[in-house]
């Protein structure tokens, strides 16, 4: 569905050149749900705007929905849906008018645009707002309308740039329910960007981590966490038992890290599938005569993955 080779884009601002995207190689198959995860300014939107033909690349190539974005941008636009980072709906227009006209822009008949529009109003809870002027809608309502605008022509490939930004948790959950449903019904391929860790983690089947204009990791969230961070198993023991415990733990996983704890010493190791490893580890510690005061198994987050890859936390930049 998408194939890019060494895609780059730079901007000139005054005398300075900003290398927003520095070489993206990406393949997305039909039906995938891919999330671009990265801090603000990583180059997610710029990449998306190149894939949607809105921005010509500085170098490299991209095929989207079977069409070259540089050679035939108009053909790309006919085959995809795009929901940008800003409000797609015009503020001075009515909700229903914008929706129907968007269908017409894609060459749909009036009847078809009306039918799809009615459908979307219902699934996105916009029915009561159809005659409202867009400028009077709340942020979450506007965002839902943007989603409807992007879906009116039932595209097989959909790009969403930060779809849930500015939404409250309730609306975010609703939005995801809609996206998931549309995908189940139509098998739509979806590429979205987000800087919300939990969103990428919970929703996307494949997470592409972008930093400074490059892909630094690309896998399922689970695999990323397993390979790039790993589970942590922590036990708390009395200081007297610390040395013995350290020796035993070293045979179970990585070199133990030590932290003081109110009850004694906390020792933690990186192991695969920590919660499954835990009973065995505790058993062997007890057999060796170690009195374990507390134990925990923690699965890593995507933030641990990002931290591990870049030495920075994604949360720092979050507003």
């Amino acid at each position, binding site marked *: 569905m998408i*194939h890019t080779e060494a895609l780059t884009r730079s901007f000139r601002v005054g005398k300075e050149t900003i290398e927003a995207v520095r070489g993206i190689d990406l393949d997305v198959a039909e039906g995938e749900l891919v999330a671009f995860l990265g801090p603000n300014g990583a180059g997610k939107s710029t990449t998306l705007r190149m894939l949607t033909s809105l921005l010509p690349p500085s170098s490299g190539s991209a095929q989207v*929905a079977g069409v070259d974005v540089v050679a035939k941008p108009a053909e790309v636009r006919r085959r995809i849906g795009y929901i940008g980072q800003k409000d797609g709906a015009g503020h001075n227009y009515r909700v229903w008018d914008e929706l129907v006209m968007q269908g017409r822009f894609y060459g749909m008949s009036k009847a078809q645009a009306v039918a799809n529009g009615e459908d979307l109003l219902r699934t996105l809870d916009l029915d009561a707002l159809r005659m409202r002027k867009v400028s009077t809608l709340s942020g979450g309502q506007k965002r839902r309308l943007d989603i409807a605008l992007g879906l009116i022509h039932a595209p097989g490939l959909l790009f969403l740039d930060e779809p849930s930004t500015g939404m409250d948790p309730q609306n975010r959950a609703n939005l995801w329910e809609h996206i998931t449903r549309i995908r189940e019904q139509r098998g739509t391929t979806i590429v979205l960007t987000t800087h919300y860790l939990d969103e990428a983690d919970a929703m996307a089947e494949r997470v592409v981590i972008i930093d400074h204009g490059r892909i630094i990791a690309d896998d399922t969230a689970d695999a990323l966490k397993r390979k790039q961070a790993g589970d942590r198993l922590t036990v708390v023991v009395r200081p007297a038992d610390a040395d013995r415990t350290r020796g035993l733990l070293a045979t179970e996983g990585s070199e133990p890290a030590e932290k003081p704890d109110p009850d004694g010493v906390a020792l933690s190791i990186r192991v695969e599938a920590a919660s499954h490893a835990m009973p065995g580890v505790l058993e062997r510690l007890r057999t060796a005569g170690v009195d374990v005061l507390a134990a925990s198994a923690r699965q890593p987050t995507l933030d641990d993955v990002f931290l591990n890859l870049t030495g920075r936390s994604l949360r720092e930049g979050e507003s």
Partner: protein
Amino acid sequence: MVALSLPAPPRTSVLTDVGHVWWRETLTIVRDPFSLIFSLVQPLVFLGFFGPLLSGLAGDGALFGGSSLQWFLPGVVVMITMFGTSMTGANLQFEIMTGAFERMLATPLARSSLMVGRALKELTPLVVQAAIITLVAIPFGFVLYPMHVVVGLVMLGIFGVGVGALSYALAIAARKTEWIFWAVQQSLLFPLLILSGMMLPLETGPGWMQVVSKFNPLTYIVDAERVLFSGTFGSLTIVWGFVAALVTAAVGLFVGVRSIRKATI
């Protein structure tokens, strides 16, 4: 890996696209017709205040070759065309800011239709405005030649699309600093209007003004409209008017489409 090809919806013609963009814009008037009523007041005010001044100035007949109303009314119609279409970019600038423009750029709409459709929307009220001021002027001695006026409006339509496209390009160029749009629009609009002989005849003005006016496409439009509104078809002035309109439209569309392609909104 070869990227999978997706089927595409039927292709639409540029004219269909123009129609769709025009109708989207026009819906703002349809949904809020009061905005139109306000736009009718302005040309009436112009006609009501300037008309008597002009006839007083000229003692009617001498300077204007007939009634001053017959001379002045086509000028007012050209003026409202300029006011309307040169604002095309203002609405656009707002939509660039909010993001609606980017959403439309991502649709298969032809690039030229985005401009032409918007410019035609600004011309839509013009038809109503022209009809009303004409009807109001009839009791005061204005003679209406309907066929000639229709041809005149077609010429203004072509010209207006060009002005609209240029205004559109200006909005894109000034997308980061809103006031520049207004500064340029205002500082071009009034000199162009005055140096076309639209409000006052240039025949009595200094020589340099008459020379400059020869390089102003608007001059040819205004002259042609005057000939048409006076009920004449057989004049070379009308041909020059159409040439000026077509050249403006061609230049406007060229510059406009280029600026859409080049800009990184």
